[in-house]
């Protein structure tokens, strides 16, 4: 019998093991670890949202829904997106409800790419971008963003990577893992490039509610979606979901907003692979959009306070860290300690029982930094930061 390894498809074999997975295994099984390594809120979904999911089950709503998702949900999404992003999408033809943004991204890649087509994305980035493109036989073309630029994506760097094979530009602002926010002027230049070269922009805006404005980050910052820029709605696939702002990661619910023909193509795959997103999650999401704004803002302010603590502590311990405008991550620069980000994270874990994620897990451009998630209870965060201070004090 052939070894099973030889039966795995080539393009799957070529995908490297996730750096996150390696690190996860090291952390798991250790006691007393405070983890700043998570990529999700520490809050449970607000009770009124959980209660709506329970009520949906009580009513016996356990069936499939339309492939596109419940119309009532798509209508709520349409209204919400218009309020949030200032772009209007037709609930019947331009919105697809998916199992998280991850599924939506997979659908985009599979629906839009022919083998060898290139997708430009920015690093460091969420770990699934590169594999999602590769699994759709596309070619992922990374643009490195730099700590010196506060991880802003420079349009000139994007322009340099455009070839006649480029089909899409994939954006994620605010960014996981850096917390970076794209300034409007660069966003406009990227939009101009997309128009000039007739490219589609895929914009993952999952963290768009979590923006820290004003002097101390306590005010909600303003988000500009590239879809709202002139001439961009017709060439943008906007991805959003409920995981981060509404603390609903386990509900697995996201959506895409895109021109009808593109939505149809994505739906074709979705109907055969997923059929539809779970109905109780969809019902919970209707409630989230209807009545969740207050809770979202409350959580955002809690993150803002923690962000202030984190930045203040890093400054005190002499760890350079730019002030991240969004999401719930900080991406401190640890190069001055002379360790690789992996060594830094490993030793911090072994010596002080604090988990942060090595920056290179998010692409080579993340080397020299670590990702510290501040979606962790305040008192835990305080202890973790004391431990980090002890650790860097010894380096």
């Amino acid at each position, binding site marked *: 019998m052939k070894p099973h390894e030889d039966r795995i498809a080539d393009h799957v074999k070529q995908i490297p093991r996730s750096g*996150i997975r390696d690190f*996860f295994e090291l*952390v798991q099984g250790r006691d007393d670890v405070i983890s700043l390594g*998570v990529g999700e809120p520490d809050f449970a979904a607000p009770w009124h949202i959980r209660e709506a999911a329970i009520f949906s089950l009580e009513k016996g709503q356990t069936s499939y829904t339309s492939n596109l998702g419940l119309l009532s949900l798509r209508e709520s999404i349409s209204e919400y997106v218009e309020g949030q992003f200032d772009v209007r999408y037709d609930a019947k033809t331009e919105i697809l409800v998916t199992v998280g943004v991850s599924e939506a991204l997979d659908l985009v890649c599979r629906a839009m790419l022919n083998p060898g087509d290139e997708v430009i994305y920015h690093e460091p980035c969420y770990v699934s971008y590169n594999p999602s493109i590769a699994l759709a036989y596309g070619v992922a073309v990374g643009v490195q963003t730099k700590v010196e630029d506060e991880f802003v994506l420079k349009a000139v760097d994007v322009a340099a990577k455009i070839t006649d094979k480029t089909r899409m530009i994939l954006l994620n602002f605010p960014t*996981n893992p850096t917390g970076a926010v794209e300034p409007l002027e660069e966003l406009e230049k990227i939009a101009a490039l997309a128009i000039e070269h007739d490219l589609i922009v895929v914009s993952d805006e999952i963290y768009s509610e979590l923006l820290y404005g004003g002097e101390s*980050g306590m005010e909600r910052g303003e988000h500009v979606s590239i879809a709202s820029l002139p001439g961009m709605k017709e060439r943008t696939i906007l991805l959003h979901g409920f995981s981060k702002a509404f603390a609903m990661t386990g509900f697995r619910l996201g959506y895409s907003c895109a021109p009808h023909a593109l939505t149809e193509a994505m739906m074709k795959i979705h109907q055969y692979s997923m059929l539809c997103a779970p109905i109780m999650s969809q019902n919970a999401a209707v409630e989230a959009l209807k009545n969740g704004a207050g809770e979202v803002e409350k959580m955002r302010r809690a993150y803002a306070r923690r962000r*202030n603590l984190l930045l203040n502590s890093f400054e005190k311990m002499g760890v350079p860290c730019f002030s991240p405008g969004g999401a719930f991550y900080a991406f401190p620069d640890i190069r001055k300690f002379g360790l690789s980000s992996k060594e830094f994270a490993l030793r911090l874990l072994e010596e002080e029982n604090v*988990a942060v994620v090595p920056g290179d897990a998010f692409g080579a451009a993340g080397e020299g930094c670590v990702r510290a998630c501040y979606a962790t209870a*305040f008192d835990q965060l305080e202890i973790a930061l004391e431990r980090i201070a002890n650790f860097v004090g010894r380096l």
Partner: protein
Amino acid sequence: MDALLELLEKNARLTTADMAVRLGKSPEEIESMAAELESQGTILGYHAVIDRDKTDDDRVSALIEVKLTPERDGGFDRLAKRIAKFGQVTSCYLMSGGYDLAVIVEGNDLKEVAQFVSEKLSTLDGVVSTATHFQLKVYKQSGFLAADTHEDERLPVTP
């Protein structure tokens, strides 16, 4: 100011330095904001939220619905303020709906509360009727759930 109130409402024991870090302000700014909130009476006081079931204290608490005859000048205010001054009254609110005042009363035992209602409250001129509801169990008070433990069940490292 609102951000500071939000913090204090949840935990009034934070030090000025703690609050300054959380809100990204200087300790001096926090001090002056807090002083202003206190002097203008926005902050009435600070207290601990205690789950009495966890103490040896057998004190009882009752919600009393009170109906009043409004007065020509000042409506309910004079009488409500008079009721609120009793030491046994911990809270007193003017309500819409079927009765006028909601009065929360605490006492060492049932008898003490009953006595307060029959001797002090219901004998006041202007009090038309009272209905006393004794509190049996606390599930949530002042924003805190009793016996609430939320375990962090997230995976330790996720993308």
